[in-house]
C-alpha cells in the first residue's frame, strides 16, 4: 500500500470511529469537555503509535496462538506508563478521565490495529498507521466534544462563548448534552454527516 494512503485513509474514508466502529466507548465518555478529549487523544496517540511499532518489531517472534495475550501485555504496559505520566503531570485532568485511560487497554482501536495491521506490516508503515489512526480518532473526539461543550456549558475549551446578556434574557444551557444521551446523539449525527460526505452506505 502507498505510504500516503496509509496516512490519509484513517483520517476520513476509513476513520476508526465512524467507519471501522472501533473505540467508541472512550469517544463518548470523555467528550464532555474539549480539554479532556485532547488529553485523551494524546494518551491514545502515545499508546497506539508505540504499541503498533513494538508489535511490528516483534511480529516474527510472536507465536500465532498466544498473540492476543502478548499484544495485550504490550498494550497494558504502555497504558500503565501513560496513566502514570498523566497522574504525574496533569493530576486534575487524570482525575476527570478516571477509568477511561485504563480502558485504553481494551480500546478496540489499539488491539484492532495491532492485530490487523502491525502483525503483517513493517515497522515504518505500522508507525504511520498507528499515528494516523490516533489522529482520525482525535478528530472525531474533538468534534463531538466541541458540540457537547458548546451546547452543554456554553464554552469551548473553557472559554465562554455566549455573552452574559444572553443568559440574562433567559437562555439556558442544554444539560442533556452533558449526560450520556447527548453523547450518543451527537456522535450519531456526526456519523451521518461523515458518511454522507464519503458516500459510504452500510447494508
Amino acid at each position: 500500500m502507498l505510504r500516503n494512503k496509509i496516512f490519509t485513509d484513517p483520517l476520513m474514508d476509513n476513520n476508526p470511529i465512524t467507519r471501522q466502529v472501533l473505540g467508541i466507548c472512550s469517544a463518548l465518555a470523555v467528550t464532555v469537555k474539549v480539554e479532556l478529549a485532547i488529553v485523551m487523544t494524546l494518551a491514545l496517540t502515545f499508546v497506539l503509535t508505540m504499541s503498533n511499532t513494538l508489535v511490528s518489531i516483534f511480529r516474527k517472534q510472536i507465536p500465532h496462538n498466544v498473540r492476543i495475550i502478548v499484544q495485550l501485555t504490550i498494550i497494558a504496559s504502555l497504558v500503565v506508563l501513560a496513566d502514570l505520566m498523566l497522574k504525574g503531570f496533569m493530576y486534575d485532568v487524570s482525575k476527570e478521565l478516571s477509568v477511561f485511560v485504563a480502558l485504553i487497554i481494551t480500546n478496540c482501536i489499539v488491539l484492532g490495529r495491532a492485530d490487523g495491521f502491525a502483525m503483517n506490516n513493517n515497522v515504518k508503515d505500522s508507525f504511520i498507521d498507528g499515528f494516523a489512526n490516533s489522529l482520525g480518532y482525535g478528530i472525531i473526539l474533538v468534534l463531538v466534544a466541541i458540540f457537547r461543550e458548546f451546547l452543554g456549558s456554553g464554552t469551548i475549551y473553557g472559554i465562554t462563548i455566549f455573552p452574559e446578556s444572553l443568559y440574562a434574557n433567559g437562555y439556558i444551557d442544554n444539560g442533556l448534552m452533558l449526560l450520556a444521551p447527548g453523547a450518543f446523539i451527537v456522535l450519531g449525527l456526526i456519523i451521518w454527516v461523515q458518511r454522507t460526505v464519503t458516500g459510504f452506505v452500510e447494508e
Partner: protein
Amino acid sequence: MPEFLEHYLSLAAKAIFIENILLAYFLGMCSFLGLSNKVETASGIGKAVIFVNTITVPLNWFIKNYLLDPGALTWTGIAAFANVDLRFLTFIAFIATIAAAVQLVEMVIDRFSPSLYNQLGIFLPLIAVNCAILGSSIFMQQRDYTFPEAVVFASSSGFGFYLAILTMSTIRYKLRYSKIPNGLKGLGITMILTGLLAIAFLSFSGINL
C-alpha cells in the same frame, strides 16, 4: 426487610438501571454495536458477559486484596512484604486475570457442558477485550467494594449490559422495515437510538431504594 439485603438490592438496582454500565458509562460499546443485529446473538453475548463478569470481578477482588493493595501481602508472613504497594500493576494484573479466566472458562465449559458451549462458545474470546468486563473490575477497585458487594455488583452490571443489548437488538429487528437515509443506515441510526434508550434509562435516576 433485613438491612443488609436492602443494601445489596439497592446496589443491584443501581448497577442495572441507574448507572447502567453501557448506557451511563459507555462501556462495552464495541460488542454492543457489532452484535446487536440479531436477537439470538445479542442474547448470547449478553449471557456471556453476565457469566464472565460474575467470575472475573470476584477473582480480581482477590488479586486486589491479597496481592496489589498496600499491606496486602502480609498473609505471606514475610516482614519485608508488609509495606509493598503493587497498585501500579493493577491494569496488567486485571487484564491478565481476565484473559486467563476467559480461556479457562472456555475450556471448562467445552469439556463439561457442550450445550452451554454452543450458546456462549464463540463469544467468549471476544469478551476478554470487552471494556465492560475490565471496567467492572476497575470500578470494583475504585469503589472499594467488599467481597459480597463485588459479587452482587458484577452480576448486576452484567445483567444491565444484557438488558441493554437485548433491547437494542429487538429495536434493530423492527428497524429493518423502516426507510432510513443512506448515510444514517447502520451505525448512525443505532447511535441515535441508543441515545433515546439512554434517555429512557435516565428516568430511573430518581429512584432511591
